[in-house]
């Protein structure tokens, strides 16, 4: 597949809608755990990475499970 096609498919992927949610959830969750802004931002980064990693693992499991379908 050509690169522009892949790029266009990537840009129109609905997964992009998860990015603002992940940012928002990470920041708010972390803000309920800390009082200082530097701690909040550091915790938010870790929470965001954890969420993305968790989603990637679930996606990989679903891909493996649906491989034979």
């Amino acid at each position, binding site marked *: 597949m050509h690169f522009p096609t892949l790029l266009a498919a990537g840009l129109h992927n*609905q997964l992009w809608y998860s990015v*603002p*949610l992940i940012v928002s*959830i990470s*920041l708010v969750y972390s*803000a*309920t*755990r800390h*009082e200082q802004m530097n701690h*909040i931002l550091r915790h938010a980064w870790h929470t965001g990475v954890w969420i993305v990693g968790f989603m990637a693992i679930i996606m990989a499991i679903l891909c493996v499970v649906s491989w034979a379908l």
Partner: protein
Amino acid sequence: MGTGNRRNRSETNKGIELRQPMLAAFLGWLLPGAGHLYQGRYGKGVLFMVCILTTYFFGLAMGGGHVVYASWKPNDKRWQYFCQLGVGLPALPAIAQARRADAGRPLLMGGIMAPPNRRPTDGNPDELAKWHRDYNSLFDLGTVYTMIAGLLNVLAIYDAMSGPALPEHDSDEKKHPPDSKESVS
């Protein structure tokens, strides 16, 4: 371990002024972040306000202003509204719109947040089905966005009422380990 955590948490919370927790919680429900602003916790107040309201209005816009509505009729029990109601004031117009729709009065704001007309007639299809067709997956995404915004505000309200649930590394444990002389005394 549990006793140590509880002790450190309460000690740390002593340093944070939680002015009128119940009033702050109510203000926080009315407008996300307002409770923290009232308590003088400006950084967190602005953070909550920006994150939660952006999520809410982004979701509302995705569904053309129709993803937030109040309805509890047999053919349309909008349970999602209970989650959306967590953002407080920005979700309340849905109740006014529902009351106006029930009374047969003209809707406000061009029908934004009004419940759908579920009785299709010759010229008018089932309005909820029309919204789903028009906005497609954006309708569901918008619903999820607005629900999450409401649920996030529940966390913010709890924070305004009780202060942050500090993990161990934020507590005074590093400065005063439990086995140190200062801590023992």
